[in-house]
């Protein structure tokens, strides 16, 4: 099933918050979903008979542009052998996205990584701690405007 058909099914099921498919970019076609809808949309994609997205390939945090962060969801279906990319874009001032770790358990650690390195805050996540950096690390290190600290716990960081 291609992204247009999936879009039509979603459009019928959800009144708003489903963006038009973007197909003219040199990347996998994607849809932008409103952050407040993302959990419900993902649950629908997983459980709907015609879609059966039973597998979350990857969940990535992105420093999207000057004012926004994004979360990118790569989904696929083993049952029906089709795939889909979703994005959700949130402002840096309020980077809250509902978790999908209750839909696909694989999202748990992916969301912790996106939180650790980019600073997206996943609402209702069961255990939103840093996963790579030390617990007392300051800032989110893959943000474009991240500045390397001069010292960490008394250890000089720059060369």
């Amino acid at each position, binding site marked *: 099933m291609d992204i247009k058909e999936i879009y039509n099914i979603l459009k019928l099921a959800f009144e708003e918050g489903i963006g038009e498919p973007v197909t003219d970019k040199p990347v996998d076609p994607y849809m932008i979903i409103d952050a407040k809808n993302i959990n419900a949309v993902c649950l629908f994609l997983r459980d709907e008979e015609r879609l059966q997205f039973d597998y979350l390939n990857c969940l990535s945090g992105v420093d999207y542009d000057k004012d926004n962060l994004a979360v990118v969801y790569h989904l696929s279906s083993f049952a029906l052998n089709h795939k889909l990319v979703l994005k959700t874009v949130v402002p840096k001032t309020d980077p809250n996205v509902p978790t999908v770790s209750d839909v696909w358990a694989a999202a748990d650690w992916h969301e912790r990584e996106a939180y650790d390195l980019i600073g997206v805050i996943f609402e209702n996540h069961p255990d939103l701690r840093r996963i790579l950096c030390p617990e007392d690390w300051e800032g989110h290190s893959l943000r474009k405007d991240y500045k390397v600290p001069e010292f960490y716990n008394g*250890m000089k*960081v720059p*060369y």
Partner: protein
Amino acid sequence: MGILNKLDTHIEQFESGNIIITSADKLLNWGRLSSMWQMFFGLACCAIEMMATSASHYDLDRFGIIPRPSPRHIDIILISGTVTLKMATRIKRLWEQMPEPKYCLSMGSCANCGGPYWEHGYHVLKGVDRIIPVDVYVPGCPPRPEALLEGLLKLQEKIRNQSLARKTN
């Protein structure tokens, strides 16, 4: 006799063959350099070379270098790879738990100076000598087992020349 060959200088043997006289320094150093027990501990790709060095082909055992699981048993710590800032805190603690006399061998570019992470590695300590004293540096990325062996032999030389009055010279 193996022990006599190792102690070589400053040694006297009586005719009966049962008594030898040597200096305390020589005897202690011989004991220390012949049983440098190593921390059971690896960090990155250098650890793979370290394991290869321990395995049968290069056989670290023949120098008396045996990996041990507790810092309380340890004479030498091989820093075999990238020291992240998160790990650096743990390495410092392990070092402080090791009993004297203790030695440190820094293996590979990352542990020596940060290696490929020297500029953009916000999470990497640029050289393990910023937190603990290093006795021998082995360059390479990663060093081959022969290079690691050479480093360990250099450390043996260092131990052979130390005296009770001072740790190293």
